[in-house]
């Protein structure tokens, strides 16, 4: 909220403290100054000057030549305004001044032969008003030479202060002044109120009935008769505009003034428009409608608290008044409401109506229930001052259950226990007393009990007092310890597995992406059963991702658009799926699983002086997935399956399974899917469930010794039907061999016309060895021949030869 420094100084003595220090201290004691606006900036070199003499310009009819005095100096100045006269005090811009409206700089000039050493300004030139009829004539009591910003009271500094939700008391000038009084240990003054009341009593004209005392614990009302509605005086208008409010009329302006002075929202009703001259505080009925001051019709529920007259609602309590009872130019008699509402009730109403006002903002944070009569009196006094009229004797104050100030006991040793630093006993007391607390116990050695004023609803416990002491005393006084203790015992790192996977993916050439977990329901439904948001930002972000695939495809699409066509991307992130059809009532109704996506698209090799271009294909993906698993020692533990389940997101897919459970799936992404993301090149990707992957027991590593005996290699090639898979051949070779066969490598594969249709050639390299001895040629031959024989017979192969 905006706080005017000049206004503030009416309540706390800040004499001798620089503005910069005030701003700094406010910030470091918890009222963060976010912005500083110097009102008078731009008035440099503009001063009050006295017009000593005015002569007609010798060469121009409409110009005059004046001699102006700033006290110690005199200047010759040419002026074109018709109203300039000797004996006036004027706003004089000296050479070097920058005119606020227009921003031009005053320089020495010659106007039709006469030298002009400055300029006498109009209100428009000064940016004060639109008036450009003539020059601005200033009060004759001003001392020539006085800087204009001072003379006009424009020397204010307005602070934008961020008030945290726990500090409703600081949402006013008096509240901020109280903090400053405590920070600088200065006196503060609350304006005294003296009322002249007329002989009639309020009860003769009005009554108040509170039906819901839970949500309206206090309702205070006062009456003023025969006021004149008019424009507010300039001091009041200036105050309101300084904090960004628009002056309306004297009555509304007074209530706004009190709001910013004291933080108590007030509401003025036109008494003559209140049916039965009665105020009833009650709940609305469901579906009831009401037109607020902003001319909008609002639909209410039985949870909303209303201010009504004997017939109809006239205001939404604590939020906004109604058109039907507002103060108009014709209003004579005013009923002023100064109430305390239950914060949570006001908040519910403001939330459900999506209507936040200055009043609701304060009520929902908690106003002071015990300030309502003072606020009403202060408003009455000002209304009578500014609008005449008679204040009726007496106050209607419905307050069935007084809200008493809390008492809190502070154990002095707790200050050190929490802060690690002791605060002097006297400073503790000064701080708390300056903040408005009272001592209600004898001053003990160990502890003291304080009464907390009701304007500080945030101070409930000892810890809250310790915070007040710490912040006013200054957090900077608490030392930063230079040693910390280390807790012995095991350390956990739940992120270490995923960090390792990231390193491996990097080593394999993948770049990490992080995509938005929120996507449209239509997209999320392609890959699972999405959890949807009640209040999404937009339909594009209405559901949580059910797979990492769509996010990765968005990344592909984005990169293709910017000309990056060769992609190796990975992402690690949570995916979410609903597990039940109904509403989520428990954590078991949905799954949240960390996943990992590996994706390749574009070219595996680009044209270089040493290489030819080659697109990524499924074997790149398979190889990368296997290398990846090898690095986490799971390559021999998992099983491969191909097109195990039809999946419409893939043209073809393969899975990695562990004990028949799928831990990862991937393949060539289907054209249909790619079209949705506007992708025109092949995309291969693979997605792991990292919970399942992390749970697979990794075989314990042991050193196996180094092979001391030679390996024997035998190659063979077959012509086979194309429908015979490589895996079948390799499987059969192993099956028909002894334990001497340790490895089979498919090293060549081709199809050609010579082989005939539906035929292809596959060549394998077989590796034999024994850890304990050198193999004899004959035993390898026996093994090898058995394997070749089996392939020929069982797979209907033609043996092409050996080497």
């Amino acid at each position, binding site marked *: 909220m905006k706080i005017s420094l000049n206004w503030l100084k009416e309540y706390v003595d800040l004499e001798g403290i620089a503005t910069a220090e005030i701003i700094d201290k406010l910030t*470091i004691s*918890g009222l*963060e100054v976010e912005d500083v606006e110097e009102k008078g900036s731009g008035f440099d070199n503009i001063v009050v000057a006295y017009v000593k003499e005015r002569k007609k310009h010798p060469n121009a009819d409409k110009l005059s030549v004046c001699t102006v005095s700033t006290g110690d100096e005199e200047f010759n100045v040419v002026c074109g305004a018709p109203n300039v006269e000797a004996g006036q005090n004027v706003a004089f811009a000296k050479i070097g001044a920058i005119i606020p409206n227009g921003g031009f700089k005053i320089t020495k000039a010659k106007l039709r032969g006469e030298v002009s050493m400055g300029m006498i300004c109009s209100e428009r030139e000064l940016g004060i008003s639109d008036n450009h009829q003539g020059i601005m004539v200033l009060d004759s009591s001003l001392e020539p030479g006085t800087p204009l910003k001072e003379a006009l009271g424009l020397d204010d500094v307005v602070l934008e202060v961020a008030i*945290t*939700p*726990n500090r409703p008391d600081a949402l006013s000038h008096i509240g901020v002044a109280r903090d400053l009084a405590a920070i600088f240990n200065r006196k503060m003054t609350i304006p005294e109120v003296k009322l002249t009341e007329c002989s009639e009593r309020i009860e003769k004209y009005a009554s108040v009935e509170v039906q819901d005392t839970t949500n309206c614990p206090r309702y205070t009302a006062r009456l003023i008769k025969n006021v004149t509605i008019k424009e507010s005086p300039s001091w009041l208008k200036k105050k309101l505009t300084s904090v960004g409010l628009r002056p309306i009329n004297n009555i509304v302006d007074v209530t706004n003034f009190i709001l910013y002075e004291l933080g108590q929202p007030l509401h003025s009703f036109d008494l003559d428009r209140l049916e039965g001259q009665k105020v009833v505080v009650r709940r609305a009925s469901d579906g009831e409608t009401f037109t607020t001051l902003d001319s909008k019709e609002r639909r209410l529920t039985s949870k909303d608290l209303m201010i009504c007259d004997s017939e109809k609602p006239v205001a939404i309590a604590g939020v906004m008044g109604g058109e039907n009872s507002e103060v108009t130019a014709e209003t004579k008699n005013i009923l002023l409401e100064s109430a305390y509402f239950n*914060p*949570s009730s006001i*908040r519910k109403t403001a939330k459900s109506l999506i209507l936040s006002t200055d009043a609701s903002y304060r009520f*929902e*944070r908690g106003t002071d229930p015990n300030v309502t009569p003072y606020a009403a009196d202060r408003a009455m006094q000002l209304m009578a001052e500014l609008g005449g009229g008679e204040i009726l004797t007496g106050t209607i104050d419905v307050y069935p259950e007084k809200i008493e100030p809390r008492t809190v006991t502070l154990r002095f040793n707790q200050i050190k*226990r*929490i*802060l*690690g*630093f002791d605060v002097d006993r006297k400073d503790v007391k000064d701080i708390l007393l300056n903040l408005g607390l009272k001592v209600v116990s004898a001053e003990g050695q160990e502890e003291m009990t304080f009464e907390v004023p009701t304007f500080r609803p945030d101070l409930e*416990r000892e*810890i809250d007092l*310790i*915070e007040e002491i*710490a*912040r006013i005393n200054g957090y900077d006084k*608490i*030392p*930063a310890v230079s040693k*910390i203790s280390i*807790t012995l015992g095991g*350390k*956990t790192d*739940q*992120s*270490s597995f995923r*960090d390792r996977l*990231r390193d491996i993916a*990097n080593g394999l*050439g993948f*770049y*990490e*992406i*992080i995509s*938005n*977990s*929120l996507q449209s329901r239509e997209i999320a439904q392609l890959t699972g059963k999405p959890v*949807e*948001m*009640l*209040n999404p*930002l937009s339909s594009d972000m209405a559901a949580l991702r059910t797979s990492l695939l769509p996010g990765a495809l968005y990344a592909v699409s*984005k*990169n293709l658009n*910017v000309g990056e066509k060769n*992609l*190796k991307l*990975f992402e690690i992130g*949570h995916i*979410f799926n609903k597990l039940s059809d109904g509403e*989520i009532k428990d*954590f078991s109704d949905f799954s*949240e699983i960390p996943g990992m996506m590996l994706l390749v698209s574009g070219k595996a090799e680009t044209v270089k002086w040493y*290489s030819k271009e080659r697109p990524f294909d499924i074997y790149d993906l398979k190889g990368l997935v296997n290398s990846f698993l090898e690095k986490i020692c799971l390559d021999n533990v998992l099983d491969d399956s191909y097109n195990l389940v039809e999946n419409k997101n893939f043209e073809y897919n393969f899975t990695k399974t562990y004990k028949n459970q799928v831990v990862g799936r991937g393949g060539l992404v289907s054209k249909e899917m790619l079209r949705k993301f506007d992708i025109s090149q092949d995309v291969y990707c693979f997605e792991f469930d990292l919970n399942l992957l992390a749970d697979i027991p990794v075989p314990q590593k042991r050193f196996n010794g180094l092979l001391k005996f030679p390996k024997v290699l035998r190659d063979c090639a077959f012509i086979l039907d194309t429908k015979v898979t490589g895996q079948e051949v390799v499987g059969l070779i192993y099956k028909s061999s002894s334990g001497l066969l340790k490895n089979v490598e498919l090293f060549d594969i081709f199809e050609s016309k010579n082989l005939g249709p539906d035929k292809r050639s596959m060549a394998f390299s077989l590796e034999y060895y024994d850890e304990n001895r050198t193999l004899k040629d004959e035993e390898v031959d026996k093994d090898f021949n058995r394997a070749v024989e089996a392939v020929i017979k069982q797979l209907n192969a033609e043996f092409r030869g050996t080497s």
Partner: protein
Amino acid sequence: MDILQTIKETDKSFSQEIQKVQDIKSLEELRVKYLSRKGIVSTLFDDLKNVSREDKPLVGKSLNELRNSVQLRFDELKEKLESVSGKDHTLVDLSLPGRKTELGSKHILTQTLDEIKTIFKGLGFSIFEGPELESDYYNFEALNFPPDHPARDMQDTFFVNKSYLLRTHTSPVQVRLMTSQEPPVRAIMPGKVYRNEAISARSYCLFHQVEGLYVDTDVTFAELKGTLVSFARQFYGSDLKYRFRPSFFPFTEPSAEMDITCFLCHGKGCRMCKGSGWLEILGCGMVDPNVFKEVGYDPEKYTGYAFGMGIERIAILKYDIPDIRMYFENDLRFLKQF
């Protein structure tokens, strides 16, 4: 003793001839001439049988020396000639680009988090994680946000329904951790969080936080300051200035925000620090006794501190990234810069 003379001459002639050798081929010819079975050196060994008995040891020694010396000089030259494959090495164009293996990289947010994790691990912190789809209880209620309290407005929330939501901060992991173990607890808790705020250059619907928590007997605000100052100096540089400002979080009391001097302008005020000279880097405070009560810790026995920082913001400041949305667009031209 002609043979000794011959040995000397052979050595001399080999020396002269080998100096003229320029390529492998003539070296091979030289080998055949001197070192082959029928070569000069072998022939001299054959002549040894004609040497008298008493001269044999001397001649034998000289012959062995000759053979070794010839072999050694031959080997040295052979290695030298082969090292440029017999080619003129000025023809190797070293300016050609090498065959490169492209490595990937971690996202800049991951890299930043890694740095933070390394520092806190060194300070004795464990690392825990928690779910992003949370209950209102863990995200708000257990952290001392009463229902219908304006403190909830500080964090615009995506709701799934009235009891489930996307966590707005990583603080719920504190609650999960404390309910699962007894003090001492010292851990950081990184992860994604979500805010229902209009997307702009400065704000995105999700971002990453690191939460920190330390609970034990005798944990103080002074220790919180010491730990965070140590972190900030390791992360941002040892000469930085800092300040702690009071703030408000429902789950800490007293609460603070930590500012460091702006590293772009060194405190003079610039666009990055919006003229203040200070950059806010994290929020922190002493764990509120109400949170302890909720998780079953005795606030009279234990004290603790907690802190939280946004990783996007830290990386924005450190790397001068102009727009938070760039983190999530996954443009390779951005990713490859880090």
